[in-house]
């Protein structure tokens, strides 16, 4: 089965291309949902193939060797092949991408119903799965980078899916440009890796790394920091997170799949994949952990102030990604990847639930205009409750296990990391608070939606994926408990030989767990007190609007970066281009014209003057020959 792993990529690619070219006849024949089902089927098939191929890794032992599948020579001059790597790490990512992706494809069949771009949507969605799988399955940095850029493209296409809406088009552009900044760092890092190692293959680079790079040396530190820049762009970490909240302009399934569950985790995956390099650069690893922790806290505070249900979840995603960065930063790769997985479950669940809610109240997205929906949307409410408790870190739901493992690993590292652990705990409390705020304002209390709206539960094609994801979010955490760490064993071969974070012994883990549960409970209870028991508070004060505006970071970037950029572009367009470039071209033209006007009279039209010119010219040549003597 492993040899056929390329099918995992090929099937959705077939779906994407097929829908683009033959989507209309297909939709005429089988109806619109038929086309959606075709797209979903390709991803489901990919998931099944990946699951079968990953069985050996579950069994462990000798069968867990990584497989390399050479598809074709790509750039022979540089020794770069299009080669896939099937090891536990890529297998886990593939399973998450195709598994969650399949559920979201099915959900979209209902959600996108009646949209004029229905076929285009599914084509893009399939294309995204192709890109993401290329990213996680690549066996060298070149293929990884190819996938990296392709997910950027599909993200752009899907954010600005409703491109006729100016905010959506602008959000797509913003995401693309901000990602470009990170990608620049990534690209420079790749060049440095190629110069240092003469190869971009993972195996060659990682095997030679300890020999070629000094421990904590400048080169490896610079390389890893540049890699971090790329990861921060794609995974929306400080300071490059600004594109993600705006990306919510895209359709909700897109937010769930790309901007919560899969694409944004690419940075975490990349740091975990290049863990060998980060191991050699402790400074960079510390920076990764710090960026993660600070982002987690920062985004959580902003999430508290948001009114738009999707923006709350967007900032929450940034915050949770911060946890993952913290995890891989302290070399708790298994914990980081585990949180990536559980987060994919509960966050896509929450997004899809939010989509169902938005559907129910006719496109309204402000939580202040919802309320009292729990009786009208029982399935959505029930599943979102699971997501809420999971992300808040209430045991035994999934979020608790993964988040706590990261926090415990951070605490165990000691020193500076205890402070990061503290930030993590505060963030856990804030997370519980803002998620409770979302749930209470949306589902509890009095109804506050506009008159004339009659909320209704979503169709089964949308609620079934919700139930599936809720089940995963509920029990997903049991995959990796301290007593039976399945995911950790599964991933072990991928991180072989690397020093991984150790977990605390004795009573400490219990104490740490109790502290974070306590923080979560405080958050939930305070939210209950604030939004359920008392009359609804007024959240239009200066502090709240500062939070809602995300500390005005967007305005700051606008003034500090966008405006000078625009000025530069204006100078280039209206001064440099018009005056210098056009001036040169037009000047040459004018010169030729002038010269021609002066030479024109020579061409008199008098045949005899031409004859005379020829004659005297010939005589002149002869005279010269006579005087000089000899031949021509």
């Amino acid at each position: 089965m492993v040899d056929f792993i390329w099918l995992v990529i090929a099937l959705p690619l077939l779906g994407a291309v097929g829908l683009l070219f033959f989507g209309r006849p297909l939709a005429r024949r089988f109806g619109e949902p038929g086309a959606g089902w075709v797209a979903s089927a390709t991803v489901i098939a990919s998931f099944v193939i990946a699951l079968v191929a990953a069985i050996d890794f579950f069994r462990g032992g000798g069968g867990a060797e990584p497989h390399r599948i050479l598809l074709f020579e790509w750039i022979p001059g540089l020794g770069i092949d299009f080669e896939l790597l099937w090891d536990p790490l890529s297998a886990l990512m593939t399973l998450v991408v195709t598994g969650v992706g399949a559920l979201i494809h099915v959900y979209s069949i209902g959600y996108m119903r009646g949209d004029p771009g229905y076929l285009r949507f599914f084509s893009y969605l399939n294309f995204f799965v192709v890109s993401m799988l290329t990213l996680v399955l690549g066996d060298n940095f070149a293929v990884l980078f190819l996938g990296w850029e392709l997910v950027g493209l599909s993200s752009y296409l899907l954010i600005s899916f409703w491109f006729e809406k100016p905010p959506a088009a602008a959000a797509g552009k913003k995401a693309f440009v901000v990602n470009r900044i990170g990608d620049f760092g990534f690209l420079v890092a790749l060049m440095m890796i190629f110069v240092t190692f003469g190869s971009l293959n993972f195996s060659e680079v990682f095997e030679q790394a300890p020999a070629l790079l000094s421990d904590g040396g400048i080169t490896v530190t610079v390389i890893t920091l540049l890699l971090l820049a790329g990861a921060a762009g794609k995974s929306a970490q400080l300071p490059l997170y600004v594109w993600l909240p705006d990306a919510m302009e895209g359709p909700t399934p897109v937010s769930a799949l790309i901007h919560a569950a899969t694409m944004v985790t690419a940075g975490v995956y990349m740091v975990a994949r290049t863990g060998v390099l980060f191991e050699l650069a402790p400074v960079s690893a510390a920076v990764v952990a710090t960026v993660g922790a600070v982002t987690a806290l920062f985004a959580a505070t902003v999430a508290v102030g948001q009114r738009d249900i999707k923006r709350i979840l967007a900032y929450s995603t940034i915050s949770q990604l911060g946890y993952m960065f913290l995890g891989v930063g302290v070399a708790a790769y298994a914990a980081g990847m585990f949180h990536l997985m559980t987060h994919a479950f509960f966050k896509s669940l929450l997004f899809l639930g939010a989509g169902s809610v938005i559907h129910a109240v006719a496109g309204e997205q402000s939580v202040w205009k919802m309320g009292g929906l729990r009786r009208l949307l029982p399935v959505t409410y029930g599943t979102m409750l699971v997501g809420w408790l999971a992300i808040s870190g209430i045991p035994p739901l999934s979020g608790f296990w993964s988040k706590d493992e990261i926090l415990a690993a951070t605490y165990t590292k000691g020193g500076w990391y205890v402070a990061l652990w503290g930030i993590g705990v505060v963030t856990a409390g804030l997370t519980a608070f803002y998620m409770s705020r979302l749930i209470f304002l949306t589902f509890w209390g009095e109804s506050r939606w506009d008159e004339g709206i009659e909320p209704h539960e979503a169709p089964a094609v949308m609620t079934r994926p919700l139930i599936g994801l809720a089940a995963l979010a509920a029990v997903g955490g049991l995959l990796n408990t301290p007593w039976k760490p399945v995911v950790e064993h599964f991933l072990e071969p991928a991180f072989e030989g690397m020093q991984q974070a150790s977990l605390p012994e004795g009573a400490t883990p219990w104490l740490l767990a109790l502290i974070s549960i306590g923080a979560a409970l405080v958050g939930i209870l305070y939210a209950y007190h604030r939004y359920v028991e008392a009359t609804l508070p007024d959240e239009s004060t200066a502090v709240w609007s500062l939070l809602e505006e995300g500390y005005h970071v967007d305005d700051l970037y606008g003034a500090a970066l966008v405006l000078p950029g625009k000025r530069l572009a204006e100078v280039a367009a209206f001064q440099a281009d018009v005056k210098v470039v056009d001036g040169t071209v037009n000047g040459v033209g004018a010169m030729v014209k002038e010269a021609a006007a002066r030479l024109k009279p020579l061409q008199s039209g008098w045949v005899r003057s031409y004859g005379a010119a020829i004659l005297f010219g010939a005589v002149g040549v002869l005279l010269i020959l006579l005087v000089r003597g000899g031949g021509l």
Partner: protein
Amino acid sequence: MEVTGGWYMALGAVLFCIGAAGMLLRRNALVMFMSIELMLNAVNLSFVAAGNELGVLDGQLAALFVMVVAAAEVTVGLAIIVMVFRKRATASVDELSGMGG
């Protein structure tokens, strides 16, 4: 007085000059045409004379080529002149300077 190769060359030069003068001074296209033929044949004469003097056939060969090309040129040139004369009722080249820049 013996007629040597030099005489032929001198005759060729004189004929060439007469032809050149005719071409530059006459306005009638037909006469100019005849002058050009004169020049061509002056050159032919030089070719043959020089070939004879040097004892090689190249001169005669070149003369034959010139004749063939001149014959072809005459057909085209005369046809043009006849057509122009029919259209403009004149053969004066000074009145046919419409191609001036």
